[in-house]
C-alpha cells in the first residue's frame, strides 16, 4: 500500500512539532525517517497511527484521503505499528498477545483460541519467525517479543508497517534478524516506515531516507550517502561522529570492584560476582543489552542498591559500608541512567539541581542554612562553562532541553573534586551536538587522571569512548576487551558468547551492520 502525507502540520500550543511534512512511502519500500530526538518523528508516527489528529494536511492511503479517530481506525485501514516500548502483557502467551483487541470469536461470543493460534503459526511460518504461539511473553528475549509485535500487526493485515526505533533494544545479531524480516516483508509488498536516529542502520536497510529536523523535512537521501553527510543533514551543521582522543595514559588502579553480587528483592541474581579494575586516566565502558545488570552495577557502586558480597574500593578505601552521601563525599561523581527520574528534580530550579548532591556541603551551606548567593554564583559560572543554554539559573530545570539538563548534571558532578566518575547512558536522548560535547567532557575528565566507568547500551558510544570494554550478560562480565574491538565480536559477547569464541564466530559470519562498519567511509 502506498502511504502519502501532504503538508501535515501538528501544533502543541505555540510549539509546532510537525511543519508541513510531505512524505511518500511506495508499496514494498523500506523508507527510513531519520531525525534527532525531539525532531518530531514520534509525533508524526502518532499522527499516522491516529493517536493525534493533524492541524493541517492530509494522510493518503493508495491516493485516498483518510482521517483517523484513534488507532482502531488506523489498524482497520491497514496500518500497523511496532512501538519502541513494546505494548505487550508479560503474563500473556504469544497467541493471546497477538489477538488482544481483535479476538476471533466462535458462536456465543466465545474466543476462538484455536483459530488465533493457527493465525500466529501461519504468519510465523510464512516469514520464518520461529515464534512458539504458546510461549509466555515474559520468557521471550526482546528480539522475539519484537517479532510478536510484528506478527500482531501482520495478523491485522497491516500493509503499512511503522517501526519506531526498532533496534534500540537489540544486539547487532538480533538487529540482523530484524533486517532479514524487514526485507522479507518488503518482498511480500508491505511498505515499511522505519524511524531511527542511528545512521548506520539507515544506510544498511533503507531504500530511501527522509531526514527531518525541528519538525520540518530537510532533505531526502539515498543509502549511498555517507554517515557524515546524513549526520550533517540531521543536525544542520558539520559534525564529527568520532571524538578525537589521545591514547590513554593509565596510571595506578584507582577504583576496583571485586566479586560484587547483588540479589533483587524477588531473589533473582542481578549481579553475579562482578570484578573489574579501572586505572587512573582510563575509561572503562560497560557494554551490553539493556537489563543485563548494568543498572544494578551502577547502583551498587553508588550505594542505592545493597551488594550481598564483594568489595568496592576507591583509592584504597572500602566503600561498601558507606551511605550514598558518604560515597559521594568520598569523591564519586555519578551520572544516573535515567535523567528525569534520578538525575534532576523537574520542579527545582537550575541552581537547586546544580547543588542537588552538595546542598549541605561547603561552600553552599553551613550545614543548617543554605547560601543562596554562593549557590547561584557557582551555578551560573559552571553552567556557562558547560555551555548550558539557559535563561537564568533560577528557572525550573524543566524549561531546559534534555541535552542542556544533562549538561547541568555533568556540571554538577564534574565541577567538584572527584576521584571516580560513573555515568550510565550519559548521552541517552541527546542530540548529536550534545553527544559530542558530553564525550569530549568525559575524555577531558579522563585526561585529568580520573578513572571513568561508562555504562552504555549504545555500541557506538562504547567504541567511541572506551579504552577498554567490559561486556555484561545476565549479571556477569563475559569478558573485558580492548577499546577498538570488532563490533561483531562485541555483539556476540552481548549475546553471551565468551570473548575467544566470539572472535572465531565473528570471522565466519559478518553481520550486515558489521560489514557496513568495515566498508564505512566516515
Amino acid at each position, binding site marked *: 500500500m502506498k502511504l502519502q502525507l501532504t503538508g501535515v502540520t501538528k501544533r502543541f500550543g505555540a*510549539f509546532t512539532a510537525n511543519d508541513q511534512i510531505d512524505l511518500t512511502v511506495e508499496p514494498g519500500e523500506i523508507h527510513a525517517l531519520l531525525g534527532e530526538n525531539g525532531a518530531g518523528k514520534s509525533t508524526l508516527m502518532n499522527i499516522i497511527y491516529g493517536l493525534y*489528529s493533524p492541524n493541517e494536511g492530509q494522510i493518503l492511503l493508495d491516493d485516498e484521503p483518510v*482521517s483517523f479517530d484513534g488507532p482502531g481506525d488506523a489498524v482497520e485501514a491497514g496500518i500497523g505499528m511496532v512501538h519502541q516500548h513494546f505494548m505487550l502483557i508479560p503474563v500473556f502467551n504469544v497467541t493471546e498477545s497477538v489477538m488482544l483487541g481483535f479476538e476471533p470469536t466462535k458462536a456465543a461470543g466465545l474466543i476462538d483460541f484455536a483459530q488465533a493460534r493457527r493465525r500466529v503459526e501461519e504468519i510465523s511460518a510464512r516469514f520464518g519467525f520461529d515464534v512458539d504461539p504458546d510461549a509466555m511473553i515474559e520468557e521471550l528475549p526482546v528480539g522475539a517479543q519484537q517479532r510478536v509485535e510484528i506478527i500482531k500487526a501482520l495478523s491485522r493485515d497491516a500493509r503499512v508497517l511503522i517501526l519506531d526505533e526498532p533496534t534500540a533494544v537489540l544486539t547487532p545479531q538480533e538487529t540482523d534478524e530484524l533486517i532479514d524480516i524487514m526485507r522479507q516483508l518488503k518482498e511480500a509488498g508491505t511498505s515499511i516506515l522505519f524511524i531511527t536516529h542511528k545512521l548506520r542502520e539507515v544506510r544498511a536497510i533503507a531504500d530511501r531516507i527522509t531526514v527531518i529536523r525541528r519538525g520540518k523535512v530537510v532533505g531526502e537521501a539515498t543509502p549511498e550517502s555517507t554517515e557524515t553527510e546524513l549526520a550533517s543533514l540531521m543536525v544542520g551543521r558539520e559534525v564529527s561522529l568520532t571524538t578525537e582522543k589521545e591514547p590513554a595514559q593509565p596510571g595506578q588502579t584507582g577504583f576496583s570492584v571485586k566479586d560484587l553480587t547483588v540479589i533483587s528483592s524477588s531473589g533473582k541474581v542481578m549481579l553475579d560476582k562482578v570484578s573489574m579494575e579501572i586505572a587512573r586516566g582510563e575509561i572503562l565502558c560497560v557494554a551490553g543489552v539493556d537489563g543485563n545488570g548494568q543498572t544494578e552495577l551502577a547502583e551498587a557502586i553508588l550505594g542505592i542498591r545493597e551488594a550481598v558480597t564483594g568489595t568496592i574500593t576507591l583509592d584504597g578505601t572500602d566503600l561498601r559500608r558507606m*551511605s550514598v552521601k558518604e560515597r559521594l563525599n568520598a569523591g564519586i561523581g555519578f551520572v544516573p541512567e535515567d535523567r528525569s527520574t534520578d538525575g534532576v*528534580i523537574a520542579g527545582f530550579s537550575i541552581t537547586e539541581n546544580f547543588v542537588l*548532591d552538595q546542598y549541605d556541603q561547603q561552600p553552599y*551551606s553551613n550545614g543548617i542554612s543554605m547560601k543562596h548567593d554562593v549557590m547561584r554564583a557557582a551555578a551560573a559560572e559552571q553552567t556557562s562553562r558547560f555551555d548550558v543554554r539557559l535563561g537564568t539559573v533560577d528557572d525550573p530545570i524543566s524549561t531546559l532541553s534534555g541535552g542542556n539538563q544533562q549538561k547541568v548534571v555533568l556540571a554538577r558532578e564534574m565541577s567538584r573534586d572527584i576521584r571516580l566518575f560513573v555515568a550510565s547512558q550519559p548521552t541517552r536522548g541527546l542530540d548529536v551536538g550534545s553527544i559530542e560535547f558530553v564525550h569530549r567532557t568525559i575524555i577531558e575528565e579522563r585526561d585529568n587522571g580520573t578513572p571513568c566507568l561508562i555504562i552504555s547500551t549504545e555500541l557506538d558510544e562504547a567504541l567511541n569512548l572506551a579504552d577498554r570494554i567490559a561486556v555484561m550478560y545476565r549479571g556477569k562480565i563475559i569478558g573485558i576487551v580492548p577499546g577498538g574491538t570488532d563490533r561483531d565480536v562485541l555483539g556476540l559477547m552481548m549475546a553471551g558468547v565468551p570473548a575467544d569464541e566470539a572472535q572465531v564466530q565473528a570471522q565466519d559470519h559478518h553481520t550486515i551492520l558489521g560489514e557496513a562498519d568495515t566498508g564505512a567511509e566516515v
Partner: protein
Amino acid sequence: MSEKKPDTPETPATSPGGALKEAESRLHYALRQLSQASWVITVLAIVVALVVGAVLILATNPQVQATAGYFFARPGDFFLTSFEVIRDAYSALFRGAVYDWQAATGQRSIRPITETLVNAVPLILAGLGIAIGFRSGMLNIGGQGQMILGATFGAFIGYAFSLPLGAHLLLALLGGVLGGAIWGGIAGVLKAKTGANEVIVTIMLNNIALYLLAWLLRQQWFVQTGSNQPITAPVDESARLFGLLGSGFRLHAGIFIAIAATVFVWWLLERSTLGFEFRAIGENPEAARTAGINVPKATALVLIIGGALCGLGGAAHLLGTEYRLAAGIAGTLGFDAITVALLGRSRPLGTFLAGLLFGGLRAGGVLMQTQTGTPVDIVLVLQSVIVLLIAAPPLVRAIFFLPNPDGSPRRKRRRRSKNGEAGSDGQRELAESRGGSAAGANTREVTS
C-alpha cells in the same frame, strides 16, 4: 525548551509495584497539581464560591421564595429581593469578620477582626504543619489527632504543674509541640521504616487520639476537678497565652506565635538544608536518594515537624482560647487546616492568608446567622467549593474561559471521513483554534 515534550508521549511505565504504586503516583500528581495551582485560580475559586453561596442563600430564603412565586407577574420584586438578601448576608459576613460599622461602640466595631485572628491562630499553625507535608509529598490527614495531642499535653502541663510565669507558658507550649511531634512521628517512623501509607496511618491515629482523650477525661488523676464531668480543670493563669487588648477581646499572644511559625516554615522550606531535603523527596524521591539524601530519615522528620506544628496549634488554641480541655477541643480544626494548606498552595504566606480567610469566615458566619437568619452552614459550603475548585483548575479555567497553560488543547472528537472532507474539517478546526469560530471565518469570506 518544550521541544522534547510532544515527541515523547508519556508511556506509562509498567513497574512491578502494580496498581497500588500507580494509585500512589496519581495521588502525588494530584497533590502537585493542588500545590501548584496559581493564585489566579485561587482568587477565581473564591469568586465562584461566593456565587454558589449566593445561589444557596437565595434558594433557602423565604422572602425570595415568595417573590419567585409571582416571578412572571412582577420579576422586579424577585431581583430586588434577591439583591437585598445577598447584600445583607455577605455584608453581615464581612461585618462579622472584619469591621462592623453598625456596632454600637468603637470597641465592638473592631472586635470582629480580632475574632478572625483568634480563629485563625490554630488554623494557621496546623495549616503550616500540613503544608510542610504537602511540600514533601506527604498527605498528612492527621492534623486533628496531632492537635488533640498537642492540646492534651499543653493542658496537662498548664493545670497540673505550678511554675513561675513565663516558664510555665513556655513549657506548656513545648508540651504541645512534643505531643504533636509524637503523634506525627508515629506515622513518620512507620512510613520511613515500613513504607506504611501515611494517609491511612494518620487517619487511624486521629481516631486513637480522640478515644485516648475521651479515656483520659474519665481519669481523675488527669482531669483534677473532683467532678464527674469529662472536662479538665482550667489551666493556670501563668500558663495562659496572655490577652493583647484587655477584656472584651479574646485576642491573645498566639497570633505572634502564628506569625513566627510562618516565618520559621518559610526559612525551613526555602533556606535550610533540611527543607531542601524535604522538598527534594516531595518532588522526586528517586533523585533525592541518588543525590545522597537519607529519604527515610527526611520522611520521618517531615511528619515529626508537621505534627509538632499541629500540636502547637492545638496547644495555642487551648492555652489562648479554651483554657479547659474537653472532648471537642479540636472541633474540625484539624480538617479545616488541610483545606487551609491547600488554599494556601502549601506556601507559608499563602497558608497564613488562607488561615485568616477561614478564620474570618468562621467569625463572620456567626453574625450572618444571627442578623440575617442565613444558616452558618453556608460558610462550610463556601469553604468546600473553594477547595473543590482549587483541586480542579481545568474546571475554573472552563468557567472563566481561560486558556490551558499546558498548551495542548483537548481536541474534539471527529468522525472519520472517507472522502475529501478531512481537509476542510482540518481547516475548520484550525480556524477555531485561531480563536475565530467557523462562522467568523465565513463572514470574513463574505466581506472580502
